[in-house]
C-alpha cells in the first residue's frame, strides 16, 4: 500500500475540494470541456519540465512511495496525476471564491 502514498496525497487534495462543487456550486466538473481544455496544456508543459528536471537530476522519487509506472521520459504516472489534480483544485478554489464573494474574474461576458 505504501506505493500509493503519492497518489494518496493527491486523493486528499481532490476529496478536500470536491465539496466546493456541491456546497458552493462551483460548477467546475459540470463544465468538463472547459476544464479539460484548461488542464491539458498545463499537463503538457509541466510534464516537459518534469522530464527535464528528472533527466538533470533535480529531483528523484522514493520507489517505495510511487506506483512505479512511468509514462514518458522517466516521468512517473504519479506526477502526471499531480499535473491534473492540482489544476482542478486551483480552478475549484477560484470558482468557490467567486461563488462566495461575487468578485469578478473577467470572463463573465454580458452579465459582468
Amino acid at each position, binding site marked *: 500500500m505504501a506505493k500509493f502514498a503519492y497518489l494518496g496525497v493527491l486523493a486528499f487534495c481532490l476529496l478536500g475540494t470536491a465539496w466546493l462543487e456541491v456546497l458552493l456550486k462551483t460548477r467546475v466538473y459540470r463544465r468538463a470541456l472547459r476544464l479539460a481544455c*484548461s488542464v491539458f496544456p498545463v499537463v503538457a508543459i*509541466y510534464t516537459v519540465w518534469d522530464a527535464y528536471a528528472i533527466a538533470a537530476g533535480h529531483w528523484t522519487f522514493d520507489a517505495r512511495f510511487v506506483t512505479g509506472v512511468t509514462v514518458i521520459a522517466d516521468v512517473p504516472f504519479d506526477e502526471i496525476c499531480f499535473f491534473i489534480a492540482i*489544476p482542478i483544485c486551483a480552478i475549484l478554489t*477560484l*470558482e468557490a471564491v*467567486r461563488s462566495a464573494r461575487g468578485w469578478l*474574474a473577467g470572463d463573465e461576458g454580458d452579465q459582468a
Partner: protein
Amino acid sequence: MTYTALALLGVLVAVVCDVFIARTKLVTRRIFWVSYCIIFVFQLLSNGALTGFRIVRYSDAAIVGSATPVDHAPPMFGDGRLMFAPFEDILFGFSLVLFTLTMWVWLGRRGMQREPHAGPPHEIMQRILKRK
C-alpha cells in the same frame, strides 16, 4: 539550468502569459490573490507531506538549500526550505496555479462554457457565509 533558475523563469513566463498574451490580467484582480492565498496554505500541507516524508527528494546542485538527507527528514524551516519543501516549490506552484487559472479564464472570455456559472452557494453555505 538549476531548479532555482527554472522556477523563477516559470513565474516570469506565467505572468507574461497572463498579462500580455492571454490578457486575462489575473494578477491585478482580488479574486486571484485571495484564491492563491487559500491554495498556498493547502500547498504547504500537501507538498509538506510529499517533501517531509521524502517521497520526493532534491539534489543540492538544483536548489539553494541542501539536498534532502538520506536517513532523516529535511528541516521544516530554514536552509532554503518552508514546510519541508525547497522554497523553489513555492515559485513552481505559483506558476502552475497562475498558468492554470489564466487558461480557465481565457477560455471563459472566449465564450467556452461560461455557463453554468458558479454560485450562488447552497442555502446552508449562505447562512454560514452571512454569519461571518
